[in-house]
Each structure stands twice: as structure tokens, then as C-alpha cells.
């Protein structure tokens, strides 16, 4: 009865494959080849944008974050040693960028409120109205920011509470509470 729901598929680290993951495009990009890096961008932008748009809930901001991720990737690609799939290395980097953006956003609002307790006061945040059937993507977009971030990282990307809490600078219990909150709001939004 209590079988664990299968976590969404995530790209797992694959250390044993060593440098096999250093594809030609990655090698060339590491040597400063922009056309090779553009190829990497085209191969991976969909997954990075999906992460950004789901976690930040704002399409134009997601575009900016996606650009930030690839600029950062360009800067750091020399450190990629092929110890994992490039896609999973890039994904981790993207998550770091997203969380960094979240933390700086939290600091900006901390003067006014603590973390995302701002949302209940902010009618423009558009929390899903009960009784309105929404597409799941839309419903995720309308979640309060902290709840949305935790839901996407835990229930879609497959990260653990301990990892998320550490990176968000919050307690594991807070992370769990936000996940529960997100699931409950989504349930209400998806059921008329």
C-alpha cells in the first residue's frame, strides 16, 4: 500500500565511465570553440529551460536564467573532467544557478518578510484558485516561490530534501513542509 512512488527519472552520475563523456563538442568548447559550444547549447537548452521556467515560474526570467546558465557553463567548462555525463554536470550547474538566484531574491525580500511568506500577502502571485482545473505546468507556475522550487527539485528533478535544504540554506523540515504545501495546492488546483 505504501510503495514509494517512483522518482522522476534523473540523469545519474556515472563516475565509472571516466572521460568517455568528453565528447568532441565538449573538448572543442573547452578549447574556446564557440561553434562547438553553440552545438552544446542547442543540444541541452530544452532541459535547462524546463528547469528554469518551472522553478522560477516566470517565462522571461526563465530565459534570463537559461542564458546565465550557459554563460556560466562556458566559464566553467574547462573544469569538466568527464567524470559524469556532460548533461548531468550541466544540470547540476543549472540547479546551482537557479538556487543562487532564489537566495538572492530571498535576501532582497528579507527586509520585508521572511522567505516566501510574502506570497500570501501578494495577490499578484496568483495562487491556484480551488475549483479551477489547470494544466499541471500552469499550476506549478502559480505556486508560491519556495514551494514551487522545492516541488520541482524534489518531485520532478528527483533531488533529496537534505540536498535541497542545504543549498537553499533552510532546514530539512522547512523543505518538507514546503513540499507538502506545494502538493496540496496542486491537488486543489488540478481538481475542480
Amino acid at each position: 500500500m505504501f510503495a514509494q512512488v517512483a522518482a522522476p527519472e534523473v540523469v545519474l552520475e556515472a563516475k565509472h565511465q571516466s572521460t568517455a563523456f568528453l565528447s568532441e563538442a565538449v573538448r572543442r568548447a573547452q578549447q574556446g570553440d564557440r561553434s562547438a559550444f553553440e552545438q552544446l547549447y542547442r543540444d541541452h537548452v530544452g532541459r535547462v529551460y524546463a528547469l528554469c521556467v518551472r522553478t522560477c515560474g516566470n517565462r522571461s526570467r526563465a530565459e534570463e536564467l537559461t542564458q546565465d546558465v550557459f554563460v556560466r557553463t562556458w566559464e566553467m567548462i574547462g573544469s569538466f573532467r568527464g567524470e559524469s555525463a556532460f548533461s548531468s554536470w550541466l544540470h547540476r550547474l543549472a540547479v546551482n544557478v537557479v538556487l543562487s538566484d532564489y537566495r538572492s531574491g530571498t535576501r532582497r525580500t528579507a527586509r520585508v518578510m521572511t522567505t516566501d511568506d510574502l506570497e500570501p500577502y501578494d495577490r499578484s502571485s496568483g495562487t491556484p484558485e480551488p475549483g479551477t482545473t489547470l494544466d499541471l505546468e500552469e499550476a506549478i507556475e502559480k505556486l508560491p516561490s519556495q514551494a514551487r522550487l522545492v516541488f520541482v527539485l524534489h518531485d520532478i528533478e528527483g533531488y533529496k530534501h537534505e540536498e535541497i535544504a542545504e543549498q537553499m540554506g533552510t532546514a530539512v523540515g522547512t523543505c518538507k513542509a514546503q513540499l507538502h504545501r506545494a502538493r496540496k495546492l496542486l491537488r486543489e488546483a488540478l481538481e475542480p
Partner: protein
Amino acid sequence: MNCTEVQLLLNDILDGTLPLGQQKSVELHLKDCAACRQELAALRSVLDKASALPVSIDPPRDLWEGIDARLGPQKILAGPFSTRWEPPRSANTNLSTEVVKSMGSSLRIKRSFAAAAALVVGLGCFWFASKSSTPAWQVARLEGTPRIDSEALENTGTIRVGEQLVTDDGSRAKITVGAIGQVNVEPNSRLRLLEAKMTNHRLALEQGTIHARIWAPPRLFFVETPSATAIDLGCEYLLTVDEEGASVLHVTSGWVALEHGGRESIVPSGAMCITRPGRGPGTPFEEDTPEKLRKALEQFDFEDGGSSALSTVMTEARAADAMTLWILVFRAGLADRGKVYDRLVALVSEPEGVTREGVLDGNARMIAAWQRHLHLDFKEWWRVWQ
């Protein structure tokens, strides 16, 4: 188990983290409770849908041009660099090694001592079991040497129902409140654990300061002080009790209710409230409320300041003090209520469809409109939060 208890565990069921000891009773409840079964199925459906989402979404436009324009020099790193999140090293690693070593040496105990050892272990287990049957919370030392009853807390320990935790001017401690939150106990504090049940987590703060962070539905965590009971309605607050039993509450996130003798003040995030022995909670005010207004409010709440104190409050109030004025509309004497309302409207525009007469007559719809207007609708907030 009842519905409230089971609802708290639904996510543990979904995540496969429900402790074995609770599975049977949860299963029994679910077997007989259609509402909880339905809730569980609905939450499971959300997870099913989430797992079916596409891993890739094309951005609405090509972002390459903007990226290309920003590409600068690449960083050359001398050492290995990882973007992996490294889980924090567990302090238990060394402990486990020590335990294993200790087990190894105990295996070397001579046979002649085995019977005596077994007896000691048996008695120890009995003692431990009897102690464990008393509800307890984990306590960790943060600084100095906190004491639980007369025993010094070295690093971690437990506080049981009836026991007292005391910190001196150089010590601090952290209490893990069951599975619902944590309380940091600041220096020079004295508190006692009164209840440690799933639906009733209750402390008595006799003196000092606590910083509570609670992530549970409302009214599961209570702190009794000599002048009021603080009831957690979700989130985070700081509560200080002085030597005379008066307290100051500072809510930093969510809401907290203060109750005493049928008088209740609900305090939102960013606001404060004072309580006095025998008088209960005063009127909540914003943390940046000017000192003159605070003094007048104290006179009104605790020193029978009446119309004179109220007049000062109204004079000193800013638009940012609308919450305080709104509450005073209902706490002021009949002769003053209209004046307080007029001052409120002079500072903050009246919500649409609301009239002075309607509010003063207690029209529920109009009062609710004001609550929403001032973001003081606790029920609405909770609906969003939960």
C-alpha cells in the same frame, strides 16, 4: 489514529518514509476512512502527473544570440572542480566506528562475566524502556552548558514531559519539537516540557527567550507564559518572558495567536504584541511602530488609559499602523470606535462596498472586506499556506 494525525503523514506515505511503527495504524485508519483515502489518491495523482511531465521544453525564442554576446574568457582551474552537491559529512561516521570498536571489545569479555553482563544489560534495557515510554524531545547544546533538571547537557540529550531546561548567561540550546519544528532556547531562559503528543506540543516558558520555527498546521504547538499562551498558527517567532511574567512576542513569519482568559490577539508576520500578567495580550503593533504610539498603546491596553491614551494612538498612527487601528475599532469603547474608524479611513482608503455604519454594526461581509484589504485574513492566509 484520527484524520488529523493521518493527514500529517500522507506525504510520508507517498515518499515511502512512513516509520514502520506507524504503518499498521495508518493502514487501519485508511481502510475505514474514505476521506483520507481520497486525499491520498489525489496527492498520488499529482505525483503521477509530475513524473509524466516532459524533461525538455523549448524556450519561446532562440537565446543563443544573447548568450554569445556575453561569452568572455573561460576560467582555467588548477584543481578538480565539482558541481555536485556533496552531502554534509555525517558526524555519525566517527561515532559508528567507535560503536563498532566498542562492540568488538565487548565480544572479548570472558565467559565468566557473561551472565553478570547480561543481567546488567537486561536491567539497563528495562530502565531505558521505562524512560523511553515517557514522551521526550531531542535537545542539542548550542553554547555553554545548558541543564536539564540538574544534569548538564554535554552535547545532545532529551527533555521529557515534566523536565525543565535551564540556560545561564553563557549557554544556549536547540530543542527538536517532535516532527514539527525546532525551538532555540536563548541564554538566561527557563522552560518546562508539558506535553509531547502528536496533537499537543506544549512548553511552559517561565523566563527568558525562545526562537520557535514550526512547520505544522495551526494549533499543534503551544507555549504557556505567566501572562498568556502563544499558539502557533504556522511559521516562526521570538518570544521573551521577563522576571515579572510579562512577555513580548515578535512574529517573523506566519501568524501566532496569544490567548488569556478569553482575550485573543492574532499577530501577523512583522508585528509584535505585549502581554502582562493578569491582563493577557495587548493590541498587536508593527515592529517599526513609533515609541510614542507604543507607550500610548500600553497605557490603553494595560493601564486603563481609556480615551486619552487612544487619542494619542490615533494622533501618532501612520498608514503603516492600520492593523493596530483596525483592531482598536473593536477594542475601543463605544464612544471611541467611530473616531478610531474615521482615523483609519483617513490613513487608508476604505475597501469598495464598505460603509462606516456597516462596519460599526458588525457587518460580517464588510469586516471580511477590511481584513482582506489589510492582508489580515488569517483564514485566507492559511488556505494558501497549507
